[in-house]
């Protein structure tokens, strides 16, 4: 469903991604790992359409569409959703507003009408219960005053409500204690489906004990230098990244 070919990206004049190739099929869970500064977050940000990244070469296609030609909101409505590493606080905009506006935007793109209120309430109640969140979160401004764990749960909650085709999760495990991580992992695992792809970006192998990926890719200095199955993640846990860094420098 997602195909990234020879992707080169510069940020403020310096090249971060240097010819990245990645293919994610429906039903697959991929994990991108790598040392800090390798360009992991850049990849998901470029796919989601964040400003400040210049694609100098290469293509990104999603279900046959040229992603780089799409507006940020079009990408989201097409089913490409990014869970942020640092979810932004939006004072004054209630979570419930965001969820409803986002869901209705997606439904409109799919040719469906506005979601009926009772159906929406039922859906939201079910999802917040699953994420072990209190209903009062809905009335609070998006992420305002939320703890790190609450912010990450909120990202997953949005995924559960919006049901993306490809869920990208950027360092979703950072800043979480073990209990919060289990809840988040459960949320992500519940997203696993035959028609959905999941892309996890993480620095640590720990998360992958709870969300077992089909494919693991190691990103070093803007390129994927090694790919394998879940076993590769465990190998990285044991050996670190250094052995791969040397390979890249050569």
């Amino acid at each position: 469903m997602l195909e990234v070919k020879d992707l080169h990206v510069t940020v403020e004049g310096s090249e971060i991604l240097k010819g990245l190739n990645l293919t994610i099929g429906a039903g697959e869970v991929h994990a991108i790992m790598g040392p800090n500064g390798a360009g992991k977050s850049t990849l998901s940000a470029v796919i989601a359409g964040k400003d400040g990244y210049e694609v100098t070469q290469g293509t990104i296609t999603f279900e046959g569409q040229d992603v780089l030609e799409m507006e940020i909101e079009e990408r989201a409505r097409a089913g490409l959703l990014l869970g942020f590493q640092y979810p932004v606080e939006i004072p004054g905009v209630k979570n419930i507003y965001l969820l409803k506006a986002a869901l209705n935007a997606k439904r409109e793109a799919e040719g469906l009408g506005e979601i009926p209120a009772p159906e929406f309430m039922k859906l939201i109640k079910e999802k917040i219960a699953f994420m072990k969140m209190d209903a009062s979160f809905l009335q609070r401004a998006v992420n305002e005053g939320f703890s790190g764990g609450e912010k990450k749960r909120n990202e997953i909650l949005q995924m559960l409500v919006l049901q993306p085709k490809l869920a990208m999760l950027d360092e979703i495990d950072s800043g979480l204690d073990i209990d919060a991580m289990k809840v988040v992992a459960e949320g992500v695992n519940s997203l696993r489906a035959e028609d959905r792809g999941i892309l996890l970006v993480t620095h640590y192998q720990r998360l992958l004990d709870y969300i077992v990926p089909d494919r693991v890719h190691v990103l070093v200095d803007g390129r994927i230098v090694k790919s394998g199955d879940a076993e590769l993640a465990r190998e990285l846990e044991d050996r670190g990244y250094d052995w791969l860094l040397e390979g890249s420098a050569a």
Partner: protein
Amino acid sequence: MNDDVQRFLDRLAERNAARGAEPTWIAARRQAGAARFEALGFPHRRIEEWKYTDVRDIAANDFALADSAEFSPAAAAALTLPIEAHRLTFVDGVFAPALSDLGELPAGVQVVPLSKALEENHEAVGGPLGRLTGVEFSPFAALNTAFFEEGALVRLAPRTVVEKPIVLQFLSRAGEREVMSHPRILVEAGGRSQATLIEHHVGEEGAANFTNLVEEIILDRGAILTHYKLQEAPLKDRHVASIQVEQARDSRYTSFNLNLGGGLVRNDLVSDLNGEGAEATFHGLFYGQGRQHVDNHTLVNHNAPHTRSSENYKGILDDRAHGVFNGRVVVKRDSQKIESEQSNANLLLSDRAEVDTKPELEIYADDVKCAHGATTGQLDAEAVYALRARGIDEQTARGLLTLAFAGEVMELVDLDAVAERVELTVAGKLPERFNLAGLVETAAAFSED
């Protein structure tokens, strides 16, 4: 004397001749108003108080005075706030009985067109009228005093509580000739009385008139008044309001000064806290687009110890709009134990929009608690991105964030009809699917659950 001033005085002379004899005190006030206006002339930008506001668009004009209140009932109904109320309507300053409906007023409450009050008992009006917002207040207040004919008198007997809001609706008409009106509003609230006053300025698209309003509000001991001023006049209208409030002991005055319309708008809002325990709360929101100019000058005089004031004004300026906020707080000598806080935050939605903000504190007492702050910024680009990244289009994302900015003021508005008007204007015409009323209802349904 310059030609502009002469032109207005000529209009006044014509009007006086046409009007015939009046009670002596009224004629004397007119004369005093005219003399003061002639002496001061229109304010110019070299005067500190008017530094950012150019009134030449008013001064250079030759406004007529309206003498009919004709207005299509259907058009009026479309403009009227959908709220159950005791309502008086004025069209270009002229009282419109057909568009007014006072319903049943509680005993001890008077809501009367000023002309009628003068006709019935002019002496009872002559005492308070002009005592607060007199000819010294400003050139515009002097001009109003020279011309005044119509407006509203609101009297609340001690301990009366008016449940439904009192609405004073001012409609501006689009016509061949640009007109001016000089309405006066006089509110006398007796001890421990309580009411909500909604002043609503609105009009036909294309109207380009000049409203020069003077208001005097007298709150006796323990009286409580909530005063909404919803100004959504057509974008070529000019609107100048001079408002002075006098507060006795333990009285509470809450102002919602909501300015969405008008091409050239100037509000002067003054409250004198004259008795211990008196409290003034000023909430303000101004939203400018196109080339709108909105100037809010406020002043709180802490004339007695143990008085409190708080003020929160928010400005949103788009396109080439220009906003001004000047908030002055004066603590009189030996007015100890007073508390005052003030904040003004502004949001600039375009590079060419401008806002000038200035807090002024003058404190002549030592045991006081005063705080103020002002900020000006743009919509948070990260927040716009975060919303778009969830599929919400840019226009709606900006609308939601702009509304969120106004939220701090708007969440205190408990009249749905007022809140909705403001939300629709501020957030823009949003597509059906982002129907904010729907969102608010959904949120409410959850909190009731």
